[in-house]
């Protein structure tokens, strides 16, 4: 259920980012919600489930945005493993301490992907702009706190199973007898 819920949340966030948050086709102040989800998965969820969530998310983003397929897969998986490595070495895992880490990892991954694309697909993407990327970093940091709380709620909600086996199990009349 957690996986399905987070895939749905990821898709909704991607749609919000490409519609409501983008007032014009050249607007750059669109918060990268998807990266906050990537960071949440890296910092709060296990690898297997995170990867299952990241595959459709990266695919949706590649379809809705960009001209080079796989760019978002690079950003999502790169960001995920980078953050996971860093988080393993951090002595604290409080959200407030993690916010700078998330935005810095966004900057690092964006820069790495830009360099990678410049190397293999030169002239296919807009020139690197520090002030734009810094603005987006700030937006990621600002969105992270409320979104992490929201994701926590979703995870808590998802872990309450609707059809637990305990409820469905047939009990004998003798309560003392162990079946």
């Amino acid at each position, binding site marked *: 259920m957690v996986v399905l819920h987070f895939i749905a949340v990821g898709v909704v966030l991607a*749609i919000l980012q490409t*519609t409501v948050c983008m007032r*014009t*086709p050249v*607007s750059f102040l669109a918060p990268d919600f998807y990266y906050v989800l990537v960071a949440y998965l890296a910092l709060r969820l296990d690898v297997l489930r995170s990867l299952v969530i990241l595959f459709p998310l990266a695919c949706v983003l590649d379809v809705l945005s960009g*001209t080079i397929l796989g*760019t978002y897969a690079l950003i999502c998986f790169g960001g995920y493993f980078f953050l996971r490595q860093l988080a393993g070495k951090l002595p604290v895992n409080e959200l407030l301490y993690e916010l700078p880490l998330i935005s810095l990892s966004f900057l690092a991954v964006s820069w790495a992907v830009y360099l990678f694309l410049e190397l293999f697909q030169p002239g*296919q993407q*807009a*020139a690197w702009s520090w002030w734009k990327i810094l603005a987006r970093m700030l937006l990621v940091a600002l969105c992270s706190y409320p979104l992490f709380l929201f994701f926590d709620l979703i995870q808590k909600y998802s872990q309450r199973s609707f059809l637990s086996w305990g409820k469905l199990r047939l009990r004998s009349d003798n309560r003392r007898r162990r079946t």
Partner: protein
Amino acid sequence: MRKKPTRKRSDRYRLFRIVILAGLLMTLGLIFLVSTLGSQNFGPLHKLVLEAMGPLQKAVTLSSSYLETFKSEYIDILQDSLRLREENKRLVQQLQENENILNKSREAMATNASLRKLLEFKNSLDQQQMVATTIVGKDPSAMFRSVIIDRGSNSGVGRGNPVVNSDGVVGQVFAVTPNYAKVLLAIAPSSAIDVLLQKSRVRGILKGNGTLTYRLEYILKTAEVEEGDHVVTAGYGGIFPTGLQVGVISKIIKKPRGMFHEIEVTPSVDYQKLENLLILQQPQLGEIKQMEQR
């Protein structure tokens, strides 16, 4: 035995007294009637009655007027305020409804104007088959520039079809699904369009750079180029029709080195206000692709 005659006597006296009193009252009443009806004078009795009744009347009148004043000052105001509040609520609601209607009509007028402009543009392109479309999604990345439109191969849209609006060239269809398509905007860094300078007929390649300007490349330094020159599509390659408005030259950077000018072009299309677009269907595009594949 002696008590009986005493009771009889007292009964008789009582009856006598009643008769006397009634007779007196009737006489007085008769006198009053005769004196009133006969002389028609406002006599002392009347004056006495009036003097007695006057203060009572005055008190009642004053208190009623006081009550009237109180009612008019407080209760009516209260009622009025309640009524006014309801009236105010109704008027505010009406105002909001009217504002909504006004907004809708303003929006409808703006859409109408935009579509009319688009229709005029469509009529100006004779014999060209085209499909009207609307943008449903925009690329949020800082590196690329593309939009998603709500028409696909079911509407006859194909990969490579030019996308325009009434102001000029917007971009090119990049990927197609049955009901949607992805358009690469002309300002995208990976976009390149064959163009002509309208005045001098010099040919060049227009490239996007991710910002709100184009870069015009491969214009020789020997060519006559001026700021303000209009740039139009060249029509080579059979993708874009010839003469579609692309932009105006806004800056020419002359460098001592190199063979070509560095030219900046301001788009004729306002990318901040992209909404309704037209996709030009190119029947010969399929043939071109087939030839390219061979």
